[in-house]
C-alpha cells in the first residue's frame, strides 16, 4: 500500500504499532548472524511449533541483535502492560518452560538478562509497561551501562524485515519532514552544525562532504553506501543492516534529496548473505509502500536504490577502488584528487558514506543538530558502535559516546579479562589500526587521541588481548592480511608489505636478527608515507605501534629466541616447556617415566632442574596454565610427577649411582673460578651448572646451611628439610664448594671477590620485609613474616601469642598463618583486596582455610592498639575496590568503616625487598625500587665481571623464576669465561617414543593425597604425601606430547 499522504502514513504507523505492541504476548527471537550462529533458528521454530501445538495466541517475530552477542540467542518476551524482558542464551529446550511461565504471567528468572520499561527510538517513543521489580533494567547490566543507542536505536527491538514496525517507531518521518520542508541547503547546514563525522574511519565532516556534492555540477549524481566492512573482527555494519535495514534506506533517500541525486547504490560485501537478503527485502517493501521509486511520499521526488555485492576484496572498501569495482573494473584505487564529489562513478559527482554515517542522519533531522552535538567530545560529536571482541568477559556491539576512555570498554562494559588472565593491550581500528598497551587505557576513544598513539579508531573494531597473545605474532597476522589484500598497483604497498611480512615471519620462526628491527621500522614508515591509498598508508600501523609499545617482546624473539606468550610454536618445544622458567623438557621425562625408565627420567629431570623434589612441592607451576590438556579436562599435574620421580630415586639405593652418572658429564676443568653469593635457589642452580661446565665454584652463604628461602622461610610441612638436604648432596658432589656463616659485604667484601675470582654472581635475594607504616608497630608482638619464619626454621624461640593476625595475601602470609596454626594459635589473615586477587598459590590458601585460618578480605591495616607496650588489638579499615590500576587489578580504596580485631600478635607479610645496605657500597647501579640493574639478556651488572640474578634483580618472586635466572646466569658466565658460546655440551640423547598418543587417556587429573586437615594442623609433618607410583603413571599417560612435530620445524 503506497503512502502518499499523512493519513496513509499514520494508518501504516498504527498497523505497525499493533504488531509491535499487540493485545497478546509477543516473542521476538534475536536473529542476526550472531544469534543464528548460536542456534536462534532452532529456537524460533521451537517457539512457532510449540505455540501451534498448544493452540496459544502468541505472536512470534524475528528481530535483530540487541548487541550483547556473548549472550546470544537473545529472546524478547513481552506481556501486554509489562516491561519487555530480554532472555539470554535461550535454547530450544528452554521453550516449553518459558511458555509455561508466560502463561502464568511470570518470567523464568534464570534466563532473564534485563528489562525495558520504555524505549526512546529517537524518531518515536514506545512504552512497554512496568513491573518485574526483581529483574534489573537494561541500563543496570554492566554491558549496557553508559551506552547510548543512537545508531542501534531499533536493533533487536523491532522486526528485522517489516517496514510497518519501522514506521511504527517513527521511521521515515524524518524523510517526510525533509521532503515537506523542501529546503535542502538549510538541511545540509543542520548536518554541518551537528558536527557529524564519517564513521568509515577517516572521520571527514559529513556536512561538508554533502555540501560539496550538492554544489557539484552534473546532470546525474550518485549516492553510495559503503557496506564493504572488511576489517577482521568488525561486524557493526553487518548488525546494523541485518537488524534495521530501513534506517539505512531512509538515510540515503534523505541524502539523495538534499544532495540532488536520484540514484543510490549500496555496495555490500558478498560475505554478508543475511544482510544482503534483509536489504533486498527492505528495498522491495520500501518500493511497495512508496518510499522508493517515483514520487516518494507523494512529494514528487524520485530515488532508486540498487544493491551491488562485492567480490571479496578488502581494498574495495576504499572509495575509489569501490567505484572502480562498481564500474566493472578491477578494484584498484585511483589517485585523489580528483575526489569522488568532483569525478566519481562513471565520471559523475558521487558521495560515498559508510553505513553507520547514514544511520545517524534520521535522528539528526528528527532531533536537531544541537541534541546530537551534546553527546561525544568537542571535536567528535555523537556516538560510535564498537565491536568489543577478544579476551574479555563480555563481547558484543557497544555504542558509546565518542571520547569514552578505553578502560571503560575493557573493564566496565567488558568486565575485564576472561579466564582470570591479565589484559595486555587493545587493538583498535582493525588492520589499519594499532595496539594500545594497558598502561594507556585512560586514553579517550575518538579520532584525534587514538591517532596520537599511532593507532586509528577506524571502523570501530576493538580486539582485547591478554598475556597469551604474542604481539609479534599480532603484527605478523595483520601484515599477512593487508599483504594478501593489497591491490598491487603501487610499489611500497605491494612489495613493501611482502618484505615486511617476511621479516616478521623470521621473527616468529626464530630467525630474526637485530638489524631487522631497524629495517622493519624504516620500511614501515616508507610504506605509510609513500603508498597510493589508505590500505598501504595505514597497513604499517599495527607493526609500528607494537614495535613502539611492546619492543621487549620483539627483543625476546630476536635475542633470546623466546615467545613468552607461547604462541610462536617454532620458538619452544611445547607450551609447558615454554612457560617453565627452567625450560624443563617436560614431555621427555613424562615419556621416559611412562616407559618404565625411571632412572633416565630422573636424569632428564635433574639435569633440567637440580631441585626437582623441592620445586615439586612448592613451585607455583606456570606449566599448568598453558598445558593443552586443559582443553580436554584439566592440565597434567607435571609438578607432582617430577616430585615423585625425584623422591623415588632419593629414597632408593639408585641415587649414588645416578649421582656418579651425572658427575661423569662434568666438562674438563677450565681453570676459571666463580664466586656465587647466596646459596638460595638462584645461587644453587647457577653453581650446579657452572660446576658441571668445568669451572671452580665457591658459594658464599651468610646462614649456617644452604637453601635460602627454601630452608629459612618455607615451613617444614611444605618442604621437609631432609628433602632439601638430599638435593644438596648432588650439588656438592658435582664439586661446588660452600663457605657458610660468611656474609659478603661484612665478612668478605665485593672487592675481595673481584680480586680473587674470574666472575662473581650475586644472588642474595630479597630478605628485608617491607614495613607497614602505621601507629603501633613499635609494640611488642608485631613482627615481620620473614623474621618469624626464619626463627621457626632455625628452631629458635619465638614469642607467638594465642591470637595472631597476619597482614598480607602472598605466600609468606599463608606460610606464616599455617605455621602459627601449628604452633597452637588462632589465626586471622587480613588482605586488602579480594580472594581472587591473592598472589598466594591457590592450593596453599585453601589448605590454610581447611586448617582453620580465618580470612578477612577488603581490609587494610589502620593501626595497632597496645596496652603497656604490648599488642592488644589491630584496627583495620574496610576497603572497596576502585579504579583499575597499572597492574590490571582494581585499586583498594579505604572507606570510613573501621573493624577492630582482638589479637596479641601481628605478623606483617606485605612484601620483601632487597637489603639496600649491602648494595650501597658495591658500586652497582640500583633501580628505583632497590633491585640491582642488569642487562636483561646477559644479566651483567654495571660493574664488570659482576652478574646478578633472582629476586635481587626481579624483586620478590618465586622459586622457579629464581632458578631460571640461575640457569641463565651460568650460561652467560660460561660464555664470558671462555670467550665463546657453548651450547648442548651438557645434553645427552635419550631414546624414547616419538609417536603422539592416538587417543587421549580418559583418566582425569591425579591429585596427591593430603594429610587430613585436623591432623596436620597439630604438627609440622609434611602435608602433601605426593602421588603413588600408579597415580604418577596415570598422570604421565595424560600428556598429549605437544613436543612432537610431524612436519619440519
Amino acid at each position: 500500500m503506497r503512502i502518499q499522504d499523512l493519513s496513509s502514513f499514520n494508518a501504516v504507523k498504527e498497523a505497525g504499532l499493533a504488531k509491535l505492541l499487540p493485545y497478546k504476548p509477543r516473542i521476538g527471537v534475536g536473529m542476526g548472524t550472531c544469534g543464528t550462529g548460536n542456534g536462534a533458528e532452532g529456537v524460533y521454530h521451537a517457539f512457532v511449533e510449540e505455540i501451534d501445538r498448544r493452540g496459544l495466541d502468541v505472536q512470534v517475530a524475528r528481530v535483530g541483535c540487541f548487541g550483547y552477542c556473548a549472550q546470544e540467542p537473545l529472546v524478547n518476551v513481552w506481556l501486554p502492560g509489562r516491561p519487555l524482558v530480554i532472555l539470554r542464551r535461550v535454547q530450544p529446550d528452554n521453550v516449553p518452560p518459558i511458555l509455561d511461565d508466560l502463561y502464568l504471567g511470570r518470567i523464568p528468572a534464570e534466563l532473564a538478562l534485563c528489562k525495558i520499561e520504555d524505549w526512546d527510538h529517537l524518531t518515536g517513543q514506545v512504552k512497554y509497561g512496568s513491573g518485574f521489580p526483581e529483574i534489573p533494567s537494561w541500563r543496570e547490566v554492566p554491558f549496557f551501562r553508559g551506552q547510548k543507542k543512537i545508531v542501534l536505536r531499533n536493533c533487536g527491538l523491532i522486526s528485522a524485515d517489516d517496514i510497518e514496525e519501522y514506521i511504527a517507531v517513527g521511521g521515515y518521518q524524518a524523510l517526510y519532514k525533509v521532503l515537506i520542508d523542501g529546503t535542502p541547503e538549510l538541511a545540509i547546514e543542520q548536518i554541518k552544525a551537528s558536527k557529524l563525522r564519517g564513521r568509515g574511519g577517516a572521520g571527514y565532516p559529513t556536512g561538508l562532504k554533502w555540501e560539496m556534492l550538492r554544489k557539484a555540477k552534473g546532470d546525474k549524481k550518485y549516492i553510495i553506501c559503503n557496506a564493504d566492512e572488511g576489517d577482521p573482527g568488525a561486524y557493526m555494519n553487518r548488525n546494523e543492516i541485518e537488524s534495521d535495514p530501513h534506517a539505512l534506506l531512509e538515510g540515503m533517500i534523505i541524502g539523495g534529496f538534499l544532495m540532488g541525486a536520484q540514484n543510490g547504490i549500496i555496495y555490500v560485501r558478498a560475505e554478508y548473505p543475511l544482510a544482503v537478503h534483509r536489504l533486498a527485502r527492505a528495498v522491495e517493501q520500501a518500493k511497495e509502500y512508496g518510499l522508493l521509486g517515483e514520487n516518494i511520499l507523494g512529494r514528487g521526488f524520485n530515488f532508486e536504490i540498487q544493491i551491488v555485492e562485492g567480490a571479496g576484496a578488502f581494498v574495495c572498501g576504499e572509495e575509489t577502488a569501490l567505484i572502480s569495482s562498481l564500474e566493472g573494473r578491477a578494484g584498484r584505487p585511483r589517485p585523489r584528487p580528483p575526489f569522488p564529489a568532483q569525478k566519481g562513478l562513471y565520471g559523475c559527482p558521487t558521495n560515498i558514506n559508510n553505513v553507520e554515517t547514514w544511520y545517524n542522519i534520521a535522528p539528526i533531522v528528527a532531533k536537531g543538530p544541537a541534541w546530537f552535538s551534546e553527546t561525544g567530545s568537542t571535536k567528535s560529536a555523537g556516538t560510535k558502535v564498537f565491536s568489543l571482541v577478544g579476551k574479555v568477559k563480555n563481547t558484543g556491539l557497544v555504542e558509546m559516546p565518542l571520547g569514552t576512555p578505553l578502560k571503560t570498554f575493557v573493564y566496565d562494559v567488558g568486565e575485564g579479562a576472561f579466564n582470570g588472565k591479565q589484559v595486555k593491550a587493545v587493538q583498535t581500528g582493525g588492520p589499519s589500526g594499532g595496539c594500545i598497551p594497558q598502561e594507556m587505557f585512560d586514553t579517550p576513544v575518538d579520532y584525534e587521541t587514538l591517532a596520537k598513539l599511532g593507532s586509528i579508531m577506524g571502523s570501530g573494531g576493538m580486539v582485547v588481548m591478554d598475556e597469551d597473545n604474542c604481539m609479534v605474532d599480532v603484527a605478523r597476522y595483520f601484515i599477512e592480511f593487508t599483504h594478501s589484500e593489497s591491490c598491487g598497483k603501487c610499489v611500497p604497498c605491494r612489495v613493501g608489505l611482502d618484505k615486511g611480512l617476511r621479516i616478521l615471519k623470521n621473527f616468529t620462526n626464530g630467525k630474526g636478527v637485530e638489524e631487522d628491527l631497524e629495517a622493519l621500522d624504516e620500511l614501515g614508515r616508507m610504506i605509510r608515507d609513500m603508498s597510493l591509498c589508505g590500505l598501504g598508508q595505514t597497513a604499517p600501523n599495527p607493526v609500528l605501534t607494537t614495535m613502539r609499545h611492546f619492543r621487549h617482546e620483539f627483543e625476546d624473539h630476536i635475542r633470546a629466541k623466546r615467545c613468552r606468550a607461547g604462541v610462536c610454536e617454532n620458538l619452544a618445544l611445547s607450551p609447558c616447556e615454554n612457560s617453565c622458567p627452567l625450560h624443563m623438557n617436560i614431555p621427555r621425562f613424562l615419556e621416559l617415566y611412562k616407559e618404565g625408565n625411571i632412572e633416565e627420567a630422573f636424569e632428564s629431570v635433574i639435569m633440567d632442574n637440580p631441585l626437582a623434589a623441592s620445586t615439586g612441592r612448592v613451585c607455583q607451576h606456570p606449566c599448568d596454565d598453558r598445558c593443552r590438556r586443559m582443553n580436554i579436562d584439566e592440565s597434567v599435574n607435571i609438578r607432582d610427577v617430577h616430585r615423585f620421580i625425584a623422591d623415588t630415586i632419593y629414597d632408593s639405593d639408585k641415587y649414588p649411582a645416578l649421582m656418579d652418572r651425572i658427575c661423569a658429564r662434568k666438562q674438563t676443568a677450565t681453570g676459571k673460578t666463580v664466586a656465587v653469593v647466596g646459596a638460595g635457589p638462584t645461587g644453587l642452580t647457577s653453581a650446579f651448572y657452572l660446576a658441571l661446565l668445568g669451572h671452580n665454584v665457591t658459594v658464599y652463604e651468610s646462614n649456617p646451611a644452604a637453601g635460602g628461602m627454601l630452608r629459612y622461610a618455607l615451613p617444614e610441612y611444605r618442604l621437609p628439610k631432609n628433602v632439601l638436604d638430599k638435593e644438596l648432596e648432588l650439588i656438592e658432589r658435582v664439586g661446588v664448594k660452600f663457605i657458610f656463616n660468611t656474609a659478603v659485604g661484612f665478612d668478605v667484601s665485593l672487592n675481595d671477590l673481584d680480586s680473587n675470582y674470574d666472575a662473581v654472581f650475586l644472588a642474595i635475594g630479597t630478605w628485608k620485609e617491607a614495613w607497614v607504616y602505621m601507629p603501633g608497630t613499635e609494640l611488642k608482638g608485631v613482627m615481620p613474616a620473614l623474621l618469624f619464619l626464619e626463627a621457626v626454621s632455625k628452631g629458635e624461640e619465638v614469642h607467638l601469642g594465642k591470637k595472631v593476625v597476619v597482614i598480607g595475601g602472598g605466600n609468606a602470609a599463608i606460610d606464616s598463618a599455617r605455621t602459627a596454626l601449628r604452633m597452637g594459635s588462632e589465626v586471622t589473615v587480613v588482605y586488602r583486596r579480594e580472594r581472587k586477587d591473592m598472589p598466594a598459590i591457590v592450593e596453599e590458601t585453601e589448605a590454610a582455610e581447611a586448617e582453620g585460618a580465618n580470612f578477612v578480605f577488603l581490609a587494610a591495616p589502620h593501626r595497632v592498639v597496645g596496652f603497656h607496650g604490648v599488642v592488644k588489638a589491630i584496627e583495620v579499615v574496610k576497603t572497596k575496590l576502585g579504579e583499575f590500576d597499572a597492574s590490571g587489578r582494581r585499586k583498594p580504596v579505604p572507606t570510613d568503616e573501621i573493624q577492630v580485631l582482638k589479637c596479641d600478635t601481628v605478623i606483617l607479610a606485605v612484601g620483601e625487598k632487597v637489603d639496600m645496605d649491602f648494595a650501597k657500597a658495591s658500586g652497582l647501579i640500583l633501580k628505583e625500587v632497590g633491585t640491582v640493574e642488569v642487562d636483561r639478556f646477559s644479566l651483567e651488572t654495571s660493574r664488570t665481571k659482576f652478574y646478578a640474578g633472582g629476586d635481587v634483580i626481579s624483586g620478590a618472586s618465586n622459586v622457579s623464576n629464581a632458578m631460571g635466572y640461575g640457569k641463565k646466569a651460568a650460561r652467560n658466565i660460561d660464555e664470558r669465561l671462555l670467550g665463546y658460546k657453548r651450547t648442548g655440551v651438557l645434553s645427552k640423547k635419550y631414546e624414547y617414543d616419538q609417536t603422539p598418543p592416538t587417543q587421549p587417556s580418559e583418566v582425569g587429573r591425579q591429585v596427591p593425597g593430603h594429610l587430613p586437615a585436623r591432623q596436620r594442623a597439630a604438627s609440622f609433618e609434611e602435608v602433601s604425601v605426593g602421588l603413588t607410583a600408579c597415580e604418577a603413571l596415570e598422570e604421565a599417560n595424560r600428556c598429549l606430547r605437544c613436543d612432537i612435530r610431524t612436519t619440519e620445524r
Partner: protein
Amino acid sequence: MPQKIAIRIDGEYVEAREGQTILEVARGGGKYIPTLCHLDGLTAAGSCRLCVVEVSGVGRLMPACTTAVQDGMSVTTNTEKLARYRRMAVELLFTERNHYCAICVSNGHCELQSMATRLGVSHVRYPYAYPRLPVDVSHEKYVLDHNRCILCTRCVRVCAELEGAHVWDIASRGVQSILVSDLQQPWGKSKNCTSCGKCVQACPTGALAEKGWAVEEMTKTQDNISRLASRRGVHA
C-alpha cells in the same frame, strides 16, 4: 588557453599553466624528478611512487605525475627522506622478482638500472623472493619475460590508449599481480595484438623485448610513442 600561474619548485619560480601536473611543470623548467611508470604521451598511473614530492601545507607526500598544480604552490622535489624512500622503492623492486642484469638484453640500457645508479642504490637489504615466473616466447617477433617486469603498466597504457588494441592488462592482486595478454592466453595466440611493437618500446626493462637480440644488445626509444601521442592530441 589555460590560465598562467606561478609555482615554486625547490625555491625557484617556474612558469606553469592551470591543468598541468607538477611533473610537467618541473620538466618544462628543467628540474629533475625521478619516474619509472611515467611515459610522455600516456595517462599517468601514479603507481611507482618514485616521483613523490613534498608540497607545503599538505600533510602527505604527493605524486608529481598526477597532482595538478595550483597557484602559489611550493614544491620540494628532493630531501634526505625522499632520497632514502626512493632508494628503498628501487631496492624493493630488485628483490620482488628476478632481475639478473648479467644475462639480460637490456643490460646497460635499462631504466631500472639507470634509476638505481642515479639514486645511489649500492646494496639491497630486503630478503629476495625468487618467485618462479614464466617466459612467454609464443609471439612470432617478441618475448615477454615476467622475471624482469616491474608492473609499471606502461605497456598496458600504450596498447590501450595509442594502439587501441588493449591486449595487455594486469590480472590478480598484490604480489600475485601479473601481466596478461587478452584473457590470459599466450601472447602468440592473441587475437587483438597488431605486432606494432609499441609495448616493447614502452617497456623500461628487458621484460618485453624483440626476439633476436643477445645480452646487452637491446636499445629502445620512446620517440615514436611521444610523436604519435602528440599527433592524436593525447598528452600526458
